[in-house]
């Protein structure tokens, strides 16, 4: 499942569906990202472009599927307002063996942070701050080579 979700997502339910559908997999790795509550953040707002962003996520999923020989891959990313403590994304990879599944999820996360058109705005009450990927995020993404 590849989707941009304008409303709340349920990672446990997504994982259950993904597991049911991933016939023949020997390993499933999933990642759920939550909006941190530190620093007084009350809400994140995720800006996106309805076509460019979805196309970039679909391309990322296809790249991961091929690169890590996945049986299946899921990426569901929230867009719009996400309250502190809520899930912001779900990524899962199903493969024959564990290392490919772990690496595929790690790869997808690095790409989501640095290469997919999504813009995160932290809201603290009436104040808001646009976030940009950190140097560490770019260093992490660079581990996978220039072509991502």
């Amino acid at each position, binding site marked *: 499942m590849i989707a941009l979700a304008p409303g709340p997502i349920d990672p446990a339910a997504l994982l259950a569906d993904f597991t049911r559908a991933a016939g023949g997999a020997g390993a499933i790795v999933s990642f759920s990202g939550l909006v941190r509550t530190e620093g007084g953040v009350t809400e994140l707002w995720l800006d996106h472009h309805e076509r*460019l962003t979805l196309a970039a996520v679909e391309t990322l999923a296809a790249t991961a599927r091929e690169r890590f020989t996945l049986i299946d891959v899921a990426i569901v990313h929230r867009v719009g307002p996400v309250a502190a403590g809520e899930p912001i*994304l779900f990524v899962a990879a199903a493969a024959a063996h564990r290392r490919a599944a772990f690496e595929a999820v790690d790869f997808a*996360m690095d790409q989501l*942070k640095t290469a997919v*058109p999504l*813009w995160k705005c932290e809201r603290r009450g009436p104040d*808001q701050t*646009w976030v940009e990927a950190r140097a560490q995020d770019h260093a992490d993404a660079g581990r996978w080579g220039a072509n991502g």
Partner: protein
Amino acid sequence: MRLRFFGRLRDAIGGELLVDVPPEVSDSEQLRLWLGRRHPALLDPSIKIALDDRILVAPQRIAGAREIAFLPPVSGG
């Protein structure tokens, strides 16, 4: 021409502008410089431009474009 702005550019400029582009502004880089006179946030070289849903890697002619989007550095995940 429909121009769209994302992330911090949305706060600086607005989500969307409909503009009449003068004839001497013929490619995406000229458009950036022309708009940048009024909206200097666009002059930041880290901002990418997407023309009709394709992110450009080099300046491209804008005649006939339906939508031009200005994309600051991203921060998903």
